[in-house]
């Protein structure tokens, strides 16, 4: 993602770590070590999100909520390795829209050491790092359809979405030109800045979530029943893991252990802290209470906003960015009740809106002293970058919304996306997965078969017989 630095002209001179494109980059062990660790951190965001989302739903659907994340992790990884990476980072097939979908089929072309060329890290590691971004983006979308979606339909949707929605957008914003390789149009032709995925991850997931929520429809009782989070301690643990993993996401996007990574590490922390404070202040004034869920949500909102902008703002700019995201996202989550779309866990309010704040914010408070070296409107940079950011954000929003809507509609039409109303009321965990999250009653029943074996008779152990005779 931040290969942007070496391809935007004068910026590359400011960054000593960047290797000129015409020279084959030498593998750097420090960079590679950091990206290995960062990739694992990004992966950790998936179980973190499962806890974050799982705690927010009712106890009868927590397992399904977590399974949508774990299912996305499995399905997207497979699709990404097969074709997703090629669509995103293969040689462009025309107009900067998509990469050659079969160029790196199965990542076969990246296995040999000779494949390492244009980065200081192995390209195959870069490919998996990018794949994990797609995993977390897809998993984020599931928050819009809590409690009511058929699991198989979700897996089909998110697999198609990987190829048709995420990968092309990643190509547009993350795939930079280099010698012998043409990348995507937004990054190279327009010059839109998206450090770690404000458009590809946040706006994309939020717009996809909105489309999906509209196609799937509202939950039974939406707007009337108390659909309160069943376990806020899980939500807090999940938010903590997301924050921890986000360092891999943002600082890892420097693709090296270098100064840019360090700056982004700091801006990420600042935005998370300010986001939390922003949300808490807003709800303290509006509702009268500073809530636990507000603290966790504001933290994530701040992180969302700093995702595109982490390399473009100063620490003070990051504080402003986080504060703005916390307040604006906190206000935006209420819109679903007014407009009656059931974005159950506020993917739109937090990720779409927060992504817009961060992406557009670069054009306002971007600092020339930050790694991307572009001044925003308020720093005397004029409206040039602001226009590029608005264009990129708008196009990604519309594309993700329309394409996701079409995929969701087709899945709904031919497979059915909804479970029965009666099953939804009973609880999706029990109906779809034949499990319940919590064993709260010891009188559970007895085994009735399955597993390919007869249920064994209980035995008393070697001394059981004697003991019973005493």
């Amino acid at each position, binding site marked *: 993602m931040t290969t942007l630095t070496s391809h935007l002209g004068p910026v590359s001179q400011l960054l000593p770590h960047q290797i000129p494109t015409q020279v084959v980059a030498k593998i750097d062990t420090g960079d590679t070590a950091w990206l290995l660790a960062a990739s694992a951190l990004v992966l950790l965001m998936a179980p973190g999100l499962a806890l974050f989302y799982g705690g927010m739903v009712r106890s009868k659907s927590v397992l399904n909520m977590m399974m949508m994340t774990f299912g996305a992790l499995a399905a997207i990884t497979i699709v990404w390795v097969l074709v997703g990476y090629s669509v995103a980072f293969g040689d462009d097939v025309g107009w900067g829209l998509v990469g050659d979908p079969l160029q790196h089929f199965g990542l076969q072309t990246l296995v040999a050491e000779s494949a390492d060329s244009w980065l200081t890290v192995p390209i195959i590691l870069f490919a998996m790092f990018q794949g994990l971004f797609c995993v977390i983006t897809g998993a984020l979308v599931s928050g819009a359809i809590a409690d009511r979606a058929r699991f198989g339909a979700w897996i089909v949707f998110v697999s198609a979405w990987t190829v048709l929605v995420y990968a092309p957008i990643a190509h547009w914003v993350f795939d930079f030109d280099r010698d012998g390789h043409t990348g995507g149009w937004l990054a190279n032709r327009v010059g839109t800045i998206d450090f770690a995925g404000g458009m590809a991850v946040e706006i994309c997931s939020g717009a996809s979530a909105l489309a999906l929520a509209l196609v799937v429809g509202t939950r039974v009782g939406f707007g009337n029943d*108390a659909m309160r989070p069943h376990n806020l301690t899980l939500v807090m643990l999940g938010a903590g893991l997301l924050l921890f993993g986000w360092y891999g996401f943002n600082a890892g996007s420097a693709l090296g252990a270098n100064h840019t990574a360090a700056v982004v590490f700091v801006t990420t922390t600042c935005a998370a802290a300010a986001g939390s404070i922003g949300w808490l202040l807003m*709800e303290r004034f*509006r*509702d009268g209470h500073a*809530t636990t*869920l507000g603290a966790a*949500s504001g933290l994530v909102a701040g992180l969302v906003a700093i995702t595109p902008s982490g390399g473009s703002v100063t620490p003070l700019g990051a504080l402003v960015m986080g504060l703005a995201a916390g307040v604006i996202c*906190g206000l935006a*989550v209420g819109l679903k009740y007014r407009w009656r779309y059931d974005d159950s866990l506020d993917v739109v309010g937090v990720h779409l809106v927060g992504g817009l704040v961060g992406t557009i914010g670069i054009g306002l408070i971007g600092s020339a002293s930050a790694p991307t070296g572009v001044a925003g409107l308020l720093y005397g940079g004029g409206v040039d970058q602001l226009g590029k950011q608005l264009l990129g954000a708008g196009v990604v929003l519309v594309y993700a919304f329309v394409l996701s809507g079409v995929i969701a509609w087709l899945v709904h039409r031919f497979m059915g996306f909804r479970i029965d109303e009666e099953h939804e009321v009973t609880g999706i965990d029990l109906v779809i997965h034949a499990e319940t999250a919590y064993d709260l009653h010891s009188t559970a029943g007895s085994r009735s078969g399955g597993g390919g074996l007869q249920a064994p008779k209980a035995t008393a152990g070697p001394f059981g017989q004697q003991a019973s005779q005493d």
Partner: protein
Amino acid sequence: MKIVTAVIKPHKWEDVRAALEGVGITGMTVSEVSGYGRQKGHTEVYRGAEYDIALVPKVRLEIVLDDADVEGVMDAIVGSAATGRIGDGKVWVSPVESVVRVRTGDRDQSAV
């Protein structure tokens, strides 16, 4: 024989238990229940969405005893469970036809 049922505030349960021990009650059945009366419920707020939570958590005690012990037990419960504020709960007495102690098969008076 009678059964005394009391629904009280959860945080008063230890006081009530101590008071009942004071009048010689050695056993009872306790359940965590929820309900509402004049106290009504409360409001919770999640991401700005307000929910009226109608049910308030309470503790329910059930004690089977001899007719002669009823008044003393009622007084002990009421005296120890009262805070003077709304939502303190209720105590009521109902007749019991027959009792069996499962372990011994003892019936009625000797089983209480």
